[in-house]
């Protein structure tokens, strides 16, 4: 083939490819608009895949790192019932992480690579887990507020456009339902207890209130991914919409058991049918995201250590499986 012809052919091919892709993109967006789920082997735009991998793996990391602040209190739980509940709850979070890593694997992202990104600091996770759990009441506050916020984020994701993610979220949401309740129950029990217990509960709320509101991410005006994600239906509400819902749901729950929301600007707004709330300290938020939170280093060190300490175990299991295969053949 002469070089002129070759150039012509290459050009022609790339033109065809572009046409194909825009056609594929059109079909893809049509499916999304009709709420037809996208499945792993379907064609999807590269960016859709990348965005999903980022979002789902961040979510998975949050579940796994999220085991640690509560895991702290398993050996110190105040009675056998609470101990079993907390253990089952933290275990559920491990399961959630696993379901979500599995969903990222359907997109071609390898679980161990994804986890290495977490350990190297390249991948992010929910900043809330970089706050310490200092008292037993924190188990109440975390379950009630953090799992509460997580549920609010996750329920709409059950209708997300990517099939495996949506299905994982259905399982997760089913399991989450007891998490928030057990947290609220802890708070309720404390609020009907002694003065020390009431103080402990209020103190936990004071420390976790603002970080919980930050869980929904930066304000809509600063959120760079929201618009595209909404078009692709891998996000169904904006950060601020979800945050408003959280405030509106939580305030009456706090009042019902005698807790005070630590926000002097909090006030019912008749016109919008929701609460107005005070300024969120976004400077603190970005600092915690960047690694300056009270526990960032501890959390990642702990996870990295778990992986390193397990390396010989995973290797041994592989070696044993190989030996058994060889024996079967022999």
């Amino acid at each position, binding site marked *: 083939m002469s070089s002129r012809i070759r150039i012509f052919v290459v050009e022609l091919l790339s033109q065809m490819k572009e046409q194909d892709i825009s056609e594929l993109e059109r079909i893809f967006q049509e499916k999304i608009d009709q709420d037809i789920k996208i*499945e792993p*082997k*379907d*064609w999807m735009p590269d960016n859709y895949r990348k965005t999903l991998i980022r979002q789902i793996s961040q979510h998975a990391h949050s579940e796994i790192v999220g085991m640690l602040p509560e895991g702290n209190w398993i050996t110190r739980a105040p009675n056998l019932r609470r101990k079993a509940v907390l253990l*089952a709850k933290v*275990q*559920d979070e491990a*399961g959630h992480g*696993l*379901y979500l890593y*599995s969903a990222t*694997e359907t997109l071609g992202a*390898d*679980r*161990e690579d994804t986890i290495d990104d977490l350990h190297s600091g390249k991948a992010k996770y929910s900043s809330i887990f970089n706050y310490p759990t200092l008292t037993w009441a924190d188990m109440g506050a975390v379950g009630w507020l953090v799992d509460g916020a997580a549920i609010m984020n996750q329920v709409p994701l059950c209708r997300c456009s990517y099939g495996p993610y949506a299905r*994982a979220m259905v*399982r997760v949401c089913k*399991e989450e339902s007891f998490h928030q309740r057990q947290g609220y129950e802890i708070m309720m029990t404390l609020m009907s207890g002694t003065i020390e217990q009431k103080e402990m509960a209020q103190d936990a709320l004071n420390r976790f209130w603002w970080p919980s509101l930050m869980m929904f991410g930066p304000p809509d005006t600063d959120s760079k991914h929201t618009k595209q994600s909404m078009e692709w239906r891998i996000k169904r509400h904006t950060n601020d919409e979800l945050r408003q819902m959280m405030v509106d749901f939580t305030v009456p729950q706090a009042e019902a058991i005698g807790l005070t929301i630590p926000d002097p600007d909090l006030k019912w707004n008749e016109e919008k049918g929701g609460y107005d709330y005070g300024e969120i300290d976004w400077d603190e938020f970005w600092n915690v995201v960047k690694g300056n939170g009270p526990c960032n280093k501890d959390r990642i060190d702990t996870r990295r250590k778990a992986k390193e300490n397990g*390396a*010989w175990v*995973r*290797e041994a*299991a*592989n070696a*044993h*499986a190989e030996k*058994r295969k060889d024996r079967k053949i022999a």
Partner: protein
Amino acid sequence: MTNKEWPLWEVFIRSKQGLSHKHFGSLRASDEKMAIENARDVYTRRSEGISIWVVESSNIVASDPSKADSLYDPSNSKVYRHPTFYDVPDGIEHM
């Protein structure tokens, strides 16, 4: 130290007698015994199942979605396979 990952397995669970096994998700395990146990621990913590199948994901052969038109559309036109295709006069029961 080589850090080869354990193989990926797909998990299918029969949630109760009389139903077929349904795909539940996936997990990693170094061998089939571990795959069954991990499936039990991960996917049946709330008594979701009474029987488990695991299949190494690499052993699954999948159809190509871009050929979906030729594979599945033809049966869309064969409405005569569905009972509602046939008229039965009012008053006729048990059919």
